């Protein structure tokens, strides 16, 4: 897997990391490393996530009650803290997803008016 630091990677917008984590956990409980890998894989390595920045976000999501953490053992027999989406987290994910879709549509509309009208 190539690990070069290509410059066409995009820094995350504030607040985007939270919804990406929630989305990742929709697949099932996983640990911090798994979340980081999932985000990279799903965005096809476009999004630049510094792994360390995941942890403050995980604390924030726990405080909101959207995820819960519990220690478990990975398939490689390693101890890791597994995060699980709660019911409130699911609701939050739905709300956030539609908010982000509107956001993306709005940005696209401003940047390229003709095309966006075509889509609608």
């Amino acid at each position: 897997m190539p690990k070069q630091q290509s410059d066409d990677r995009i820094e995350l917008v504030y607040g985007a990391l939270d919804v990406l984590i929630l989305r990742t956990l929709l697949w099932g409980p996983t640990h911090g490393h798994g979340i980081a890998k999932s985000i990279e894989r799903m965005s096809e390595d476009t999004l630049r996530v510094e792994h360390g920045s995941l942890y403050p976000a995980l604390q924030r999501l726990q405080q909101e009650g959207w995820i819960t953490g519990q220690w478990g053992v990975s398939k490689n027999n390693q101890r890791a803290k597994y995060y699980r989406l709660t019911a409130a987290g699911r609701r939050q994910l739905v709300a956030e997803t539609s908010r982000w879709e509107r956001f993306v549509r709005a940005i696209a509309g401003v940047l390229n008016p003709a095309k966006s009208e075509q889509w609608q």
Partner: protein
Amino acid sequence: MSWRRTLSKVAALFRRPTPVEDLAEEIRAHLEMEQQENVESDMPPKDAHYAALRRFGNVTLAEERSREMWGWLWLENIMQDLRYGVPIYDFTTFESLISESVAQRRFTTVLMLSFAFVATALALIGLFGVMTHLVAQRQREMAIRMALGSTGSALCWLVMRRGAVLTIAGCAIGLLLVPQSTRVVRGMLYQTSAYNVVTLGSVPILLFVAALLATYLPARRATSVDPMVALRHQ
């Protein structure tokens, strides 16, 4: 910040251990997984380790940020103090605390020291006065001795010898009394002994010098004048 977050922050304050207690372990596990994955993609173990660290970013910063999420630092500190039941009031420096604890002793010591100085000075002045008086009393005798052919220096030696003998005898008696008399102050002595050689030596020497001066000066005056004048004086 939503009310839920505020609430969980408050709850975290009372909870022991706090939710981020195991954060270091969690991050270590994360780094190990990343390293392992790098090794599996044919990276030398050492490079794999550093690549994982690079990918993670600043570990300390991540820990700190996560910890900060759980509370208000100042409130955390106050809660910790409350938990350990240590009320903090009456701030003072350690230095002044020590200084306060020894204030009484210091006062007594300074007082004793000044008394000792005054006593030594009085002893010197008194000795000087007595010796001068003794010599002055023998002025007529010295004039007669001069008239009978004694020399000035011989007379000086006579009275000074007497003064010296008296002073040495006094100092000897004083030194003999040292073991008994220092008992009172021994408890107040610090970093010195009751038998301090410098003190026990310098005071007799001072007294001795004072006695010699007190006898020499009037004796010289008495022998330097004409014997007839001295005899007629009284």
